[in-house]
């Protein structure tokens, strides 16, 4: 990918990121959405996060098959407990990295 193509890619990515952030602010300020839409939008974040996360934990990137003994999954358990107890994103990220580092050295 050359510099120009990279720039086009960034512009495309920034537009599709910026527009959904902007539209509700200018269009909805004060107005109310239908209930089903609020409910749907309320469930979307957890659904997307879980869809992003689960395959990273249990699907091998080499074989593309299910693998329940990945260090990614083993490190995820204590990382989730730390997130649950401490409710701090930065501590979770640092602890997760260290846990994964140690786990992948052991396995």
């Amino acid at each position: 990918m050359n510099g120009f193509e990279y720039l086009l890619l960034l512009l495309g990515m920034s537009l599709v990121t910026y527009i959904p952030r902007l539209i509700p602010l200018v269009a909805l300020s004060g107005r109310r959405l239908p209930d089903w839409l609020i409910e749907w939008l309320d469930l979307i974040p957890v659904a997307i996060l879980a869809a992003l996360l689960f395959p990273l934990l249990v699907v091998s990137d080499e074989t593309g098959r299910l693998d329940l003994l990945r260090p990614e999954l083993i490190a995820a358990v204590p990382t989730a407990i730390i997130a649950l107890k401490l409710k701090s994103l930065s501590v979770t990220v640092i602890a997760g990295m260290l846990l994964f580092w140690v786990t992948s050295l052991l396995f």
Partner: protein
Amino acid sequence: MTDPQLDKKQSIRQEISQGAAAAWPVFLGYIPLGLACGVIARNIGLEPWQIGLMSVLLFAGSAQFIAVSMLAAGANPASIIITTFAVNLRHFLMSSSLSVYLGKVSKKLLSLFAYGVTDETFAVNLIKFREGRWNFTKALVVNHVSNFSWVASTIVGGYAGEFIPEGAFGIDYALVAMFIGLLVMQLRGRKYILTALCSGIMAVFFSIVLPGNLYIIVSSMLAATGGVVILKKIRQVARNERV
């Protein structure tokens, strides 16, 4: 007698310092994440200025991690853009929730504010708005202080990436750990836990059978839609029982 001009200056200074104080945890939180993102991007061959430009234009942590890993895998630009859209669509909900508190702000200023809506700035600002004594200026400061931290740490990570070998310190796990943290903090009740489980299990299945990154959109839409339908059914049953 007080000078009204001076009063105004003082109150703006106060608002800026209050906004910065609220942004502090986000500022700190972005440092390890931004460093990790910069190092990984450098390891796949992006220059520090390319990394910085991405941070300035996007300001979206998880989308940037995903874009970098898709670039490394040789994905085509269209699929990277579609995935970015799907991953960042959640900000639509966040902006919708924030819009309730920003009724009187001009469109021009709102378009500046929209740039800084991320999971973390949203969380901080919404909590502050709900508590009261929060306003647009302070919220805007939160966004931009956080933005500065993100842009700076990804660039520093980009320069450091040359000296840090691939996979050192578990840096490859930064994104996974962030997803774990964000997910855990959003599980505020049974409906969120069930939706997350359904979506995650479907995603595992679809990631094996569907090509590319389609599984993210397919499973999250199915799980959220299923959740809405089931909640509606539950409410209907409850209403019928009452009658």
